[in-house]
């Protein structure tokens, strides 16, 4: 069993949306603007033409933060949200009653409603597709043109992700909330 996490070298991101399309194709996500497990947050540039502040414009790829201390899991009344054997935060659609507490609880706004199944959906690190087939990458990691992502087992000290986290400065989002995300952003 593994404890999966992901490191994002977000400065590489060019907001090309390859990750989003790969995720949709891999996981059969419904098309439509409200349906996506993964996205790139963008911040509009500041300043007036021609004096624009380049540094103020950034692209931040995001998705479920796979918190070790997930608020969504805590509030779920039916235990539909659970940790799987690889510590991935998953949603069991059979147990989900669409009360949407988890959506309210998630500080990262990472969950949405799948109109087809009428259940809450979100990133699961391709647990029931690629990982289930024995592959060792997620669709987004694999396809990314500028190689933003490193996916791997945080419990394995020899894994690349462990090595990167040992050697490079990084941060997590909203760390003050104590959610202990397993998505790490390289500075």
């Amino acid at each position, binding site marked *: 069993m593994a404890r999966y996490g992901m490191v994002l070298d977000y*400065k590489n991101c060019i907001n090309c949306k390859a990750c989003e399309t790969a995720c949709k*194709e891999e996981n059969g996500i419904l098309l439509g*603007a409200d349906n996506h497990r993964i996205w790139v947050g963008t911040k509009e540039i500041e300043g007036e033409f021609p004096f624009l502040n380049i540094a103020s414009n950034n692209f931040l790829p995001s998705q479920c933060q796979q918190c070790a201390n997930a608020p969504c899991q805590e509030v779920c009344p039916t235990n539909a949200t659970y940790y799987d054997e690889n510590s991935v935060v998953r949603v069991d659609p059979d147990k989900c009653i669409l009360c949407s507490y988890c959506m309210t609880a998630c500080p990262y706004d990472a969950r949405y409603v799948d109109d087809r199944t009428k259940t809450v959906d979100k990133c699961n690190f391709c647990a029931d*597709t690629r990982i289930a087939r024995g592959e060792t990458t997620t669709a987004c990691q694999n396809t990314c043109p500028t190689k933003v992502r490193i996916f791997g087992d945080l419990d394995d000290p020899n894994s690349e992700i462990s090595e990167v986290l040992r050697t490079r400065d990084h941060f997590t989002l909203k760390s003050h909330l104590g959610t202990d995300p397993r998505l790490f952003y390289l500075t």
Partner: protein
Amino acid sequence: MQVEISRRKFLQGTVALSVIAASTSALSNTKSQNDKKTFGTTKTSNNKNEIKIVPTLCEMCVNKCAAYARVENNVVTKLDPNPHFPKSQNMLCARGNAGIQALYDPDRLKYPLIRVGKRGDGKYKRVTWDEAYSHISEKMAKILDEEKDNRSCIGYCAGEGMAEHTYKTFMQDKFGSSNFVNHSSICLQTTVSGYALTIGGYGQADLENAEYIIMAGANRAEAIVTPDTMELFKRTKRRGAKLIVIDPRFTNTAAHADDWLPVEVGTDLALVLALTYVVLTEELYNKKFVALNMNGFEEYKEHIISSSYTPEWAEKITGIKVSKIKKIARDFMHHAPKAIYYQGRRTAWSKQDFQLRRAQAIFTALGGGIDKEGGIVFGKKLPLGSHSINAPIYANAEGRIEKDAAAIIGGSGSWIAWRNKVVEDKSPYPIRGMFVYKQNPMLSIPNAKKTKQMFEKMDLVVVIDTMPSDTAMMADVILPECTYLEREDPVKSFGGAQPSIALRQAATKPMYETKPVIEIMHGLGSKMAKPLWEVTKKHDEDVQDEIEGKSEAEIEAYYKENGFDLSDDFAHSQEEINKHMVEEVYGSEAWKILREKGVYYLNMDKYFKKLSSNEYQWYPRDRRFYSVVRGEFKSDVFHDTCVNEKEIAVLKKEFKTPTGKVECVLNNLAKKGVDSMPKWRDEMYTATPKGKFKFITGRHGQFTQNATSNNAMLLDLMPENYLWINKRIAKDRGIEFGDTVEVESNVGKIQIKAYPTEKIGFNTLFFIHGFGSTSDNLTLGVDNGASDNEIIDDVIEPVFGSAAMHETIVDVRKV
């Protein structure tokens, strides 16, 4: 740090265009439900055993990235990157991932069609392939009889693609028409030729090793090019590569720049000349490299200095400050030879474009960054076996019609000039018919009204495509091609510092009644050959002389031996031809590897390694072809750490130019009325009148021109295009975000929604190319946004006859 992380904020935001697009998506909410069609994606299987992986090559844009098609029960469920290809370096972009939608698009052309309505109204009847071929054959025989076997009375065009040459072989070598037009003159003709004539080749920008890059008008974060895009953005943002972006718009590429300079549209040449002036007057150039490798340098230096192309002069024209010009010139040379003035791709901008590209090439050469790691490298190309064509000779076929339209009209023609000759009745002989393969001139050639008129004049228009495009709606006969995932294409060798051979294989069988173009050419050739042979016998005196007095059997033998059987070169399957081309040079083991891995190069088994989750090795560093121009330098010379990099750059080279050196002066061009050295010409510059705007166009990472206009998944990311207009100008004119505005030029007007932004200057308007289809048969793509070519004026660049697409003056108003 302050960053946007919320998905909901992302949806509601009014920031980037695509974000706006997503929040106002009409696609999932209205169109698909109204049409009762199901679009979407399939979840991939969790069972490894149900999956077959087929290595192939993407065709969603021109890059040809290596992909694995995952096939489950004969259905392609996912496309993943194939790591073996050094060019695409294990990536697949949004379009690459959305390739499945091209295969399963419900609007695909499924059967051969013959027009029953008026041209352009989209009414067709389904016919068999044989009926379609017969229809074409009869019309062709009639036209050619009336034109006395002048084969050139049938024009033909093609978009870029791996089977383009199969089609061209048929139309040019077998059928015998000289009137070919392709994408070059609306795309990269000026830069490819500008660099080739100056340094001997277009080369490849070695962005993996460059320390300083000036990228002007090239938008590699959005118009993705492999490997440039991947190599560049891993090193920007103070991580090894300094990037200077020169662009009238603030793009996603500019977001990664160290400096962004909004240049006045159409003045890039003045900027490069001023940069050159600084380098020459301050003597910052690589003197050894210049002395050994540049021809006509003193003359060029004298020309630049005596013309007073000073930064002060350029500031007035370009709007870029003197201090910036000086700084860039100095910084560039400080980092040279690992410094590149990026060549660019779709360079059909202004009338002065060819000289701009020459000036850029010379500027890079002044630093010594040609044929040098970190500069522009030529690399190596792995040879493929030969494939000979039995091409007939037609005595009555005439030369192309637009030869006089520019100084140099090459084999791929000038699209605008060619079309205008037909429309304006200025063709030396009538163009009676047109074959269109994988191109959509109705949306891709400036001044769409005229393109429509051109098609209306034709007696026969045949379109071979996968989708019912706007151009297909102008056809008499539509022949449905299968998509790239359903066919094997000609094997291709990709040159560069890490050369390889790659193969597109079919992931699944052709759906409906679609066929690959090689089979279409075989079928059409079989049907047309004899009727056209009769026409040739009737009008071609050379043939008449040859067959005079011969028996029927001897004439038949002559017909076959001399290639008049139009189908004979297409009798073998593409797979057989590819096998032959590879095995002839590399043997059967190489062919096996190529089919299994999708990619082949020498020593691949030893060299190719996975280094980490994101890194691969294709060639070890010391085996790459960064410098190849002159073979006598042993490779170890270049890897001897005792040798100074600047010293290496100056080693005498031999470029593929007439003198073997970088050509500062091209006297043979002067004979054709073209300046022998890059020179700014005021009279060739279109100034923007006060209160009006210059219109510019460009591309985007989630859309490839108009071939992707009906792709459900890509439309999901971006359903329509928006007009970029400066926020303050928009305010003055009462235009707010989402308002419908009308943009009008000399040649037409369009309506589009507005996107007021500070990312564009006061006198410039922009929207993305590839939208605005009017074909009702594209149920998702029709009427989304606007087509730029409805308003772009048909201005011809005078050296190669390229389209000058950024010369159009427009006005805008709220409707």
